[in-house]
């Protein structure tokens, strides 16, 4: 393997990569492995220590960027949410914002609030799914079932709004596709309140569990400087003590009218990285309540587009805070109905770079804890 520019972490004594060829064992963890997701990590271990880790994504690469070049701005919508169907509103958000910039239309106020609410609901849905897998990766089967079950509350809510359980295809340039159903505010408030009560119960059994703490604290520590240099984003960055949340720093839609609190932890270990999304969920419940309060009770939810919208000869780069960190969308338009080039710069792909760095020198038993604490979604990274 190659040299790292970043000085590698101190290996335990007696571990040098060069001289132990006959002692190291190469493990192909994935792509079909209960602890890898749809990705392969080529791990070299010496005893119980990982001496080298090489992530090999691409198992579920679908060429979404290439596909987007031959579809117009509207028919791209169901495709571009495919990388993260659990977070489909948030992955569509930068694209929709970018197309609105290109085409130059205004979004009605009520649609902006509906977007924020659905995006926050979707963030919770994604994080619950992520948390469920984090639980099962650590061998905590209850933490697999509880989030997967409680997620159903919000999926139910999203189904009432958008008509689909996961692949909503709800955002559209110019607003959202349909209005929320009648007495939506009450139902939403009731379910979100119960959801918040439920996720607070995770603390006793999971986050304050001494075995979990002993297991994940001080493993895979990413310092603040390294987190910045590696360009990580989202929960990984905030767990390392960097106060950076695009919802606060570069508010889009109506986030500047809402009181959004950024959760930051200083430790930078697996435990902090796994706790930040949970705190984010609590914050999301807060945001949803605020947005429900401030949302205009009636009004238009969609500015009609022309049938075949064209962008100018322009480019745009918009970014939002998705469940996994910043999701950026770079659209280059050439006055055609289709984008000339569309690039998704997603949180998973940006956080993946920290994986080989973090795994080096860890124990094999820590691999799932470190890997999944990166808030990584293999399908999104592959696009």
């Amino acid at each position, binding site marked *: 393997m*190659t*040299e790292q*520019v*970043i000085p590698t972490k101190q290996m335990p004594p007696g571990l040098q990569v060069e001289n132990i060829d006959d002692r190291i064992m190469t493990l192909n963890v994935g792509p079909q492995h209960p602890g890898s997701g749809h990705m392969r990590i080529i791990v070299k271990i010496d005893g119980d220590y990982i001496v080298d880790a090489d992530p090999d*994504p*691409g198992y579920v*690469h679908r*060429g979404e*960027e*290439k*596909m987007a*070049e*031959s*579809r*117009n701005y*509207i*028919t791209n919508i169901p495709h571009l949410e495919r990388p993260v169907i659990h977070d489909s509103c948030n992955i569509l958000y930068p694209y929709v914002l970018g197309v609105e910039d290109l085409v130059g239309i205004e979004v009605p106020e009520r649609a902006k609030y509906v977007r924020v609410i659905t995006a926050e609901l979707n963030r919770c849905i994604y994080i619950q799914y992520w948390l469920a897998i984090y639980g099962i990766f650590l061998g905590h089967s209850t933490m697999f079932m509880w989030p997967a079950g409680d997620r159903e509350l919000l999926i139910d809510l999203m189904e009432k709004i958008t008509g689909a359980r996961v692949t909503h295809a709800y955002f559209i340039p110019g607003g959202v596709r349909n209005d929320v159903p009648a007495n939506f505010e009450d139902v939403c408030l009731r379910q979100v309140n119960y959801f918040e009560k439920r996720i607070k119960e995770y603390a006793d059994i999971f986050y304050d569990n001494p075995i979990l703490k002993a297991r994940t604290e001080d493993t895979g520590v990413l310092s603040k400087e390294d987190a*910045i*240099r*590696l*360009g*990580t*984003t989202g929960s990984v*960055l905030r767990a390392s003590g*960097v106060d*950076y949340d695009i919802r606060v*720093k*570069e508010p889009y839609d109506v986030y500047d009218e809402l009181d959004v609190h950024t959760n930051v932890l200083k430790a930078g270990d697996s435990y902090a990285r796994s706790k930040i999304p949970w705190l984010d969920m609590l914050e999301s419940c807060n945001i949803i309540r605020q947005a429900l309060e401030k949302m205009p009770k009636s009004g238009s939810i969609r500015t009609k587009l022309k*049938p*075949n919208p064209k962008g100018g*000869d322009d*480019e*745009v*780069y918009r*970014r939002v805070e998705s469940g996994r960190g*910043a999701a*950026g969308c*770079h659209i*280059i338009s*050439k006055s*055609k*109905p*289709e984008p*000339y*080039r569309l*690039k998704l*710069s997603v949180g998973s*792909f*940006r956080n*993946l*770079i920290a994986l080989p760095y973090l795994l080096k020198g860890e124990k094999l038993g820590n691999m799932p804890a470190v890997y999944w604490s990166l808030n990584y979604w293999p399908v999104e990274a*592959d*696009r």
Partner: protein
Amino acid sequence: MSKAETTPPPKATPPPKATPPEKTEPPAPAFEKSYVDQITNQFSDDVEVEYIKENRTRVNVKKEKIAEVAKFIKDNTPFDHAESVTGVDFPEDKEIGVVYHLGSYTDDTYSKQVLALATRVPREENPNPGNDSTKLPSLRDMFYSVEFHEREVFEMLGVYFESHPDNRRLLLPEDWADLPPLRKDFRNKGR
């Protein structure tokens, strides 16, 4: 929706050269202009400001100078990480564009800013990734976070990054033997 979406992108109409002339735009925002000016003052001939919009700026750099400019940006401005590297194919110009989007975590005043650092490399009709003239110096030493992005651009567009220590395939299968797929002459089936 017309039938146009189903036909391949037409080649007949060549788009204007890489930098369209600036139209009557509102005056550039002052803050964004200040840090772009920092770069243009240093490299007056080699860089070209494409646009300065609110929170977004783009600077086109000659490919020989890209590492130098990146080093200058890294040392003298708060931009500390690359968010995204986009490779764009321009078959009409026989060039491939590479756009680095740089952001800043450390400086709060810069947290909204995204500086796009763009460059172009010559494109070859019959690409032989790694062994032809489509080469760029890697920015990995300046912005470590471009490592995987540059690997992706290498496999998707065939731009070889010199001094990148790990120029391997990332997403594509190991036995991929076709054109780099994000080039415009690689056609999707049925499109």
